[in-house]
C-alpha cells in the first residue's frame, strides 16, 4: 500500500513534468511560427526582391558609338567589326589546355599564367576574351576548329578612323580604367569631351539564371541605343590639303577658320599620328608614339605656344590709335634702331625704313615705328586689348591640352616673376616678342576679331553649337586703317608678303601679316653683325616662321594661321603655305 502511494505520487510528477515539456514545445513552436511570420509575411517583399535579384541576370550589350562627320557628312570616325577569340569555361573542362594549344597553333603570344588566374574568377557561362583575331588567324582557326570546344570567335565593334589627319582633333579611345566602366571610352580630344554624347545607351538582356550563372531562359531584351552622331565644322578636303602643305621635315601647324561664324575648317599639326593604332592595339607603334621626342601627340595648333612676332603688331597699333598716341598720318623716322635709356632696340631692316607712317609700318613691318609707339604705351593697355581680341583665352571646344598662352602685364610679372615691369619690355612686347605666347588658333581668332571689328565669333568645332560672339567693338575707322594696312602687306609693292601676289597672281587675293618669332634673343652685337642672317644657326635655334592671312582681302571669308617651327622668316616659308591653303579653301568654297 505504501509502495502504491509513492508510485502514484511519482506518476503525478511525471504527468506534471510532461505538461511542462509540452508547454516548452508549444512555446518553441510559437517562436518558430512568429519567425516564419516575420520572414514570409512581414518581410515578404524584401525576400521576394532578393529572390528575384538572385535569379535575374542583367547582361549589358554595348551600344554602337555615335559617328563623327565633317561639315559635309564625310565619315571621320565610325565603328567597324572586330573579331575576338573568346573562351567559354562551361563548354569544355579542358579549356585551359585548349587555350594553350590555340596559343601554340596561332601564335597569339598569350600570357597563359595571367589568363588562367583571371579565368578562375570568371563566371563559366560568360565568355572571356583572349585576344583579337585577324583574318589569317580566323582562317587558321576554322581549319582546326574541331580541336577547340571551348573557344569561339565572337564579333564586336571597334572604332574606325578612316583619315589619320584628324587624329589630333578627334583623339582616340582607351580601355576602361574602373571596374564600373564596361566598355572602352574616349580618352583624348573630342572622343573624350563628347564621350556622353557619343556613347549611347547599353542594351540589357534580362534572363533567369541558376546559381551557377547558367541562363535558363531569356525574359526580355532592351535594345541598345546608338550614341548621337557629331558633326564637325571641319572640312575633309581642306584638312587633307593643308596637311599636305606642311613641310614633312618641319614641325608646324595650320589653322583655317571662317570669319563669319568662327567655324574651324581645318586644323593641322605636323608631325601627326594615327589614332587607329590604339584601336588595333598595335603596342609597338603605341610605344614608339609615346616615346617620340617630336611629340606627335601634341597638336601645335592649340597646344603649341610661340611668341607671335610681327603678326602681333596690329594690336599695338590699335592701342596707339585708341589712346590717340598715333594716327594714320604721323610719321617716325626709322634709322634701323631706336634707343631707350642706354640700350638700342633694332629694326629687322638694319639700314632702316626712313620715314614711316602707320600703314607703312605694318606693310613693311617696321620695328622702330612700334618701338617709338611703345615708349608712350602702357603695357596693361596692350594686355587688355589682347584679351578683348581673343588672346589669353582657353577656348572650350572639347580639345585636350588646349592652352591659354600668355599676354604679359604688370600684374602678371609681379605675380609670377616677382619683378616690376620695365618699359624696355613693352618695346619688345609691342613687336610680338618677349613674354608673349600665342597658339596658331589664337592668332587666327585675333585676326577674326580684327576683321569682325572687335566683336568676334568664338571658335567652334561642333557644327551644331550656335555661333556666339564676344569681345568689344573697335572704332570702325581704326579697324579700316589696320585692315587697309594688312591688305597692303600682300597687295602693295614693298609689302613683306607682296611676293605672294606676284608669284601666284591667279590665286585668290589675300591680306595678312608676316611674323618671325625669335627662338633665342639675339645679342645686340650679333644684330650689328652683317652676317647674322646668313650665319649658320643651329636648326633648333632658328626663328619660327609665322603668317596669318585672310581671303579674299576685300571681303574676308577665311583666315589661315600658319607656323613653321624653325622655318626662318614669315614671308619666305609660312606665307606661301597660307596663300595656297586660303586659295584652296576659296576655290573649293569649303
Amino acid at each position: 500500500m505504501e509502495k502504491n502511494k509513492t508510485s502514484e505520487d511519482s506518476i503525478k510528477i511525471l504527468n506534471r513534468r510532461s505538461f511542462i515539456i509540452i508547454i516548452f514545445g508549444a512555446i518553441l513552436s510559437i517562436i518558430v511560427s512568429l519567425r516564419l511570420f516575420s520572414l514570409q509575411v512581414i518581410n515578404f517583399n524584401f525576400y521576394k526582391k532578393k529572390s528575384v535579384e538572385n535569379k535575374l541576370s542583367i547582361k549589358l550589350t554595348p551600344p554602337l558609338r555615335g559617328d563623327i562627320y565633317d561639315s559635309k557628312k564625310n565619315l571621320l570616325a565610325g565603328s567597324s567589326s572586330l573579331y575576338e577569340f573568346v573562351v567559354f569555361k562551361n563548354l569544355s573542362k579542358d579549356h585551359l589546355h585548349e587555350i594553350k594549344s590555340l596559343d601554340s597553333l596561332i601564335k597569339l603570344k598569350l600570357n597563359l599564367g595571367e589568363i588562367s588566374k583571371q579565368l578562375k574568377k570568371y563566371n563559366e557561362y560568360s565568355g572571356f576574351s583572349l585576344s583579337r583575331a585577324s583574318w589569317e588567324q580566323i582562317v587558321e582557326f576554322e581549319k582546326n576548329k574541331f580541336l577547340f570546344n571551348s573557344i569561339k570567335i565572337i564579333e564586336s565593334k571597334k572604332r574606325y578612323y578612316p583619315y589619320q589627319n584628324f587624329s589630333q582633333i578627334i583623339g582616340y579611345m582607351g580601355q576602361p580604367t574602373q571596374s564600373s566602366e564596361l566598355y572602352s571610352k574616349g580618352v583624348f580630344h573630342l572622343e573624350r569631351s563628347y564621350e556622353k554624347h557619343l556613347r549611347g545607351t547599353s542594351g540589357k538582356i534580362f534572363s533567369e539564371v541558376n546559381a551557377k550563372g547558367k541562363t535558363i531562359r531569356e525574359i526580355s531584351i532592351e535594345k541598345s541605343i546608338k550614341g548621337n552622331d557629331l558633326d564637325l565644322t571641319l572640312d575633309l578636303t581642306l584638312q587633307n590639303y593643308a596637311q599636305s602643305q606642311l613641310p614633312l621635315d618641319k614641325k608646324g601647324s595650320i589653322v583655317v577658320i571662317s570669319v563669319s561664324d568662327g567655324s574651324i575648317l581645318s586644323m593641322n599639326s605636323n608631325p601627326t599620328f594615327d589614332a587607329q593604332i590604339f584601336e588595333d592595339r598595335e603596342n609597338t607603334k603605341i610605344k614608339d608614339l609615346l616615346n617620340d621626342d617630336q611629340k606627335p601627340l601634341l597638336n601645335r595648333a592649340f597646344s603649341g605656344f610661340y611668341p607671335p612676332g610681327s603678326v602681333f603688331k596690329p594690336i599695338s597699333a590699335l592701342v596707339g590709335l585708341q589712346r590717340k598716341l598715333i594716327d594714320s598720318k604721323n610719321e617716325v623716322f626709322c634709322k634701323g634702331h631706336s634707343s631707350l635709356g642706354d640700350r638700342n632696340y633694332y629694326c629687322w631692316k638694319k639700314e632702316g625704313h626712313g620715314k614711316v607712317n602707320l600703314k607703312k609700318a605694318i606693310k613693311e613691318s617696321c620695328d622702330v615705328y612700334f618701338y617709338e609707339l611703345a615708349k608712350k604705351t602702357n603695357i596693361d593697355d596692350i594686355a587688355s586689348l589682347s584679351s578683348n581680341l581673343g588672346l589669353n583665352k582657353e577656348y572650350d571646344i572639347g580639345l585636350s591640352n588646349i592652352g591659354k598662352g600668355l599676354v604679359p602685364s604688370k600684374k602678371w610679372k609681379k605675380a609670377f616673376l616677382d619683378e616690376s615691369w620695365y618699359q624696355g619690355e613693352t618695346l619688345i612686347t609691342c613687336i610680338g616678342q618677349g613674354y608673349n605666347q600665342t597658339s596658331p588658333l589664337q592668332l587666327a581668332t585675333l585676326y577674326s576679331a580684327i576683321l569682325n571689328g572687335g566683336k568676334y565669333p568664338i571658335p567652334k568645332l561642333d557644327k551644331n553649337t550656335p555661333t556666339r560672339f564676344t569681345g568689344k567693338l573697335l572704332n570702325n575707322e581704326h579697324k579700316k586703317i589696320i585692315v587697309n594696312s594688312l591688305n597692303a602687306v600682300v597687295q602693295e609693292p614693298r609689302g613683306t608678303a607682296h611676293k605672294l601676289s606676284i608669284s601666284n597672281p591667279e590665286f585668290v587675293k589675300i591680306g595678312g601679316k608676316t611674323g618671325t618669332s625669335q627662338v633665342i634673343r639675339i645679342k645686340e652685337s650679333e644684330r650689328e653683325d652683317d652676317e647674322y642672317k646668313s650665319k649658320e644657326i643651329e636648326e633648333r635655334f632658328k626663328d619660327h616662321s609665322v603668317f596669318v592671312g585672310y581671303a579674299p582681302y576685300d571681303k574676308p571669308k577665311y583666315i589661315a594661321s600658319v607656323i613653321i617651327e624653325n622655318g626662318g622668316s614669315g614671308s619666305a616659308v609660312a606665307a606661301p603655305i597660307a596663300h595656297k591653303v586660303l586659295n584652296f579653301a576659296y576655290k573649293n568654297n569649303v
Partner: protein
Amino acid sequence: MFREFKSIYNLNWIYLFILLIIFWIGEINLYSAAGGSFDPWAANQLTRFLFFLPLFFLIIMLEPKFIYNFAEIFLILVLIGLITTLIFGYTGMGATRWIRIAGFNLQVSEFTKIALVISMAKYFHKLNAEKTIGLFKSILPLVVSIIFFILVAIQPDLGTAVIILALGLVVIFYAGIKLIYPLLSLGAILSISPILWTFLKPYQQNRIQIFLNPDLDPLGKGYHIIQSKIAIGSGGLQGNGFLEGSQSSLDFLPEKETDFVFAIFSEQFGFTGSILLISLFFIMFLIPVLKTYKLSQVFNKIILFVLSFKIFFEFLINISMTIGILPVVGVALPFMSYGGSSLLSNLIICALMLNFMSINERKRMFS
C-alpha cells in the same frame, strides 16, 4: 517475443495516418527539390520506406516486455557501433559518421538516441518505487548520456550529439528530478560556455559565428542561411505553388534535399503550408503524449513521451536552423530530409509509439 496478431486491431490508426501524410509530404517535397522528378531522391526514399516497412510492423508486434528486457543490450550494441564508427567508419564531408553494414551506410548515432531513451526508461522504471529522484540517482544516466554525447561529438557531429544529450536530460527531467538540479546545471553550463567554446572545432565555431551574423561570409558558410531565408521569405503567405520555387529549382539553395529541405517546402507552400506542417508534427507529438496520461508504468510513459518528443524536437531544431534562429548544426527534418538512417530511426520510433500506445496496462507486463 511477439504479441498476438489481433492486437493490431488496437493500433492508433490516426497516428499511423498522420505519419503517412507527413511521409507523403516529404516525398512530394523531394520530388520538387529535384525539379519535378522522382529521380533521384523521392524514388530512393520511397524504396527505403518500403524496404523498412517489414521491420516497422515487426517492431509494432514486439512484446513491450521484450524491449524492456533487452534495453541494456541495445545500448551496448550502439556503443559498440559508435566505437566501430570511430575506428573503421566511412568518412564523408570531414566527419566519420557512417559504418557499412550489409551494403548500407548506417549512421549509428541516429539509433543511439532510441537506445539511450529505452535504457534510461528502464533505469527510471526500476526506481519508480522511490520518491522524487535525488541528485545521486540521476548521476548514472547523466554520465551515460554524456559519454554518448562525447562519442558522437568527436565524429564530429555536434547536431546529433546535442540531441542525444538533450534527450538524456529530458528523460531525467521527465522522470522527476528535483527542479533545483536542472536549474543549477543550466546556470553552470551558461557560466562555463566560454570555456566550452574553446573546445569546439574551428568549423563549429565558424558556424556559430556565422549563425549570429550570416553576412560575415555571404558567399561561404553564411550562404546557406542567407539563401535559405530568401527561399522561405519569398514564399510569402500563400507560397509560390507546387514546383514553383525558383530559389530551389535554380540551385541557389545548397543541401536542399537534406538539412534545408524545409526551405523547399516553405518556398512552395508559404506561411500557410508551414503552419499546417508545424501543426501536423505537433499533433503527431501530442497523440502518444496524451496516451501517457492513461498509463502508470514509468517505462511506458518515458518511451512514449520522450521518443515522441524526440521527433517533434528535431523538427523544430531543423526549422529553426533554416530560418536562422539556431546555428546550422546538421539535424535532419524527420521524414522529409533525404537520408536512410534518419528515416529508419524515426520509423522505429513511430513503430514503438504504435506499439506502446496499444498497451493495455490492466494486464501486468513487468514483474
